[in-house]
Structures are given as C-alpha cells and as structure tokens.
C-alpha cells in the first residue's frame, strides 16, 4: 500500500443511513434536492472545535478537488474556486468546444489522467473528491483511496443515492478512523485496492 503513503484521493460525502446524498429532484435552484439540507446540519459546527470542525478543516486543507460534471454545474461551478484557489478537476463525458470553465477548474474526460493530475497538483496534500458520479468513476478506475462518509442519523426515504447498483464485484474497505460529531458519524474508510 505504498500508494496510500502518498497523499490520498479522498471522497467527502454526507450520507443518510439509507444511502442518500441529496433529497429528490435535485436541480438548479434546489441543489440539495427537496429537504436534502437535512444532511448538512453538521456543517453548522464547521468553524467550531470538535469533530465536525476538525473534519471540515481537513476538507478545506485538501490540495485539489475532483468533481463530477453534474455536481460542478449544480454548484454553479463554484465560481472557479471551491476553496483556497486549489485546482478543480472536473470529470465529464464531453468537455465541449469553447466551454472554458472558470478559475482553476479544468475538464477531463479520462479518469486516470484526471486523478493523476489532481495528485500532482495537490502535492503532499490530500485530494478531495466530491459527488456520486466522481465517486463511482474513481472507484471503478481504482483511483479512489479513501472515503470519508459523514453518516447522518436519518432515513430520507427518497433522493439521490451515493452508490448505484453496479456489477463491479466486491470492493473491500478498512475503517481507519471514526469521529463522532453532532448529527454526523464521520467514518473514514481506506479502499483496499486489488493487488
């Protein structure tokens, strides 16, 4: 596992116990889906001491961002700056001729190239991955090293799932850290890559 000795690509996602990362009908103007804001109450503590603040601080200290195109667009392209001006690497099926994303953002159609350049850009800092699409693409390409799941004690019942049914075979994980914050259990898993 020398790979994880270097800075990891780590997925950050809030998820309900029933596996949703947004409420239903997530779209422009309702980015978190209907009532999906329930999953982000823990972020009220983001500037406070304690586990929620610690996890948010770690997220903000990442050296690059990988996002799916859908998340990127829903977020208004973060106006080109997710945090601290670090590069934003956006996975997309079609980059679109002449569509130049703002600020530090750049489109990629190749997952491995995206991951490789994000790692290089982040240097010794972790890379933050965000969005269900990016998570699936990185997992399937064997490029996701860690998952930091903010597990929220609620059943949403309906919404956008983090994990879609996929014929990928088992992916083994290892729980390497657990932090209990207010309204979120932060579970950090390491992906045990196939040899």
């Amino acid at each position, binding site marked *: 596992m020398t790979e994880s000795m270097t800075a990891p690509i780590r997925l950050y996602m809030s998820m309900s116990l029933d596996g949703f990362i947004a409420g239903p009908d997530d779209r422009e103007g309702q980015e978190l889906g209907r009532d999906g804001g329930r999953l982000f109450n823990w972020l009220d503590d983001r500037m406070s001491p304690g586990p929620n603040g610690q996890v948010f601080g770690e997220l903000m200290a990442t050296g690059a961002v990988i996002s799916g195109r859908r998340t990127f667009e829903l977020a208004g392209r973060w106006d080109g700056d997710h945090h601290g001006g670090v590069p934003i690497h956006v996975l997309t099926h079609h980059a679109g001729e002449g569509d130049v994303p703002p600020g530090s953002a750049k489109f990629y159609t190749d997952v491995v190239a995206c991951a490789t350049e994000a790692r290089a850009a982040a240097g010794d800092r972790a890379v933050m991955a965000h969005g269900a699409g990016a998570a699936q693409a990185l997992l399937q390409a064997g490029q996701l090293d860690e998952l930091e799941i903010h597990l929220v*004690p609620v059943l949403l019942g309906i919404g956008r799932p983090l994990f879609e049914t996929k014929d990928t075979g088992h992916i083994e994980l290892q729980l390497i850290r657990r932090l209990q914050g207010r309204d979120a259990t932060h579970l950090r898993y390491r992906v045990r890559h196939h040899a």
Partner: protein
Amino acid sequence: MSRVILYMAMSLDGFITGPGDDKENPAGVGGMRLMEWLGGGGPEVADWRPGDPQSQIVFDELMSTGAVVTGRRTGDFAGYWGGDHHGGVPIFVPAHTAPADNRYERVHFVTEGIESCVAQAKAAAGDRDVLLHGAYTAQQCLKAGVLDVLEIQLMPVLLGQGRLLFEGLPADHIELDLVRTLEAPKVLHLRYEVRR
C-alpha cells in the same frame, strides 16, 4: 417494556445480500461476506457467537430476545430455522395467507397485518425485546411506525449489487438517534432509536 429491534448486517452501500438471492443461496452471490462478523458457524447457536467482545455484546442481546418477527421470504429461505431461531422463542411471520402445512409449532403466520403481528410478538416476548429480521418486513414496520430500534452491523465492503435494506420508504424523513457505537475489527455496530 418490550421493543422491536431490527438486527441486520449491511454493506456500506446498503445491501443485505448479494445478487440472485434464492432458496439455494439465501445470502445471494458473495453475500456471505456480510456474515463475517459472526463466528465460524456450525450446528449449535453458540457456534455463531463472534470472537470479539464488542460483537459478542450484540450477539448476546440478539439471542436474549423473547420473540422473533421475520419476513415470509427470509423465513422460507431459512427453513424457519427448523422451527427454532434461538431458545425456543416464538416466531411470528406477517403473511397474506397462512401456508396450509405449517410444520412448526412455534411459527405463527399472522394475516391481520404488520401491526397485529408485532403486537402479538411483543405480547409473547413479555419483558424481553423482539428480534426483527428481513428487509421487506423492516420497511413495513418502519412505515407502520412500529419499529423501535435499528441495530446495524455495518460491514466495511461495497457489494455493488444485491438486496437493499432500505427501499420503498415514504419521502417523509424518519429521524434516528444514534445511541450506541461498538467498533470491532470486522464490523461497526450502530444502534439507532427511531424518533417518534
């Protein structure tokens, strides 16, 4: 006061079996991965007791429940555990129609709905809790507001496909309170109370 407690092992991506679960292979393809928090297994209940002390707490609680509610599918697949899940406690099965040939004295098919099924199980359990098992029945209990506690054995694996624990629930949020976390080498035990 008897409570209804769901005990289910679930992958991080929400599955409780692998794909293609049927009578010959109740856990589905590769689904036995989810049972690895238990002991090695064998003819005796004690053979399934986990080796680590945290998981033993959960297992011993499960085995001290005073009645079982299980779905028809889960029960059929398991052959109703030969009529005895543990300790000879009664087993209640919500069903649309009772089978003509119920071979098991302690297995009761309840056709009056999930509320009645749970009420009968609670009455039978007395002071002890009721063990609930099976995804569909858990969903029915959640919808009917008769599920008190979820004891989830969260397994560190992504199965990718299989049978989901939570499916077809109403869009109204069901709020939970995390009341206990037990971390074992192979599993994370999360105990949630359903808020009403």
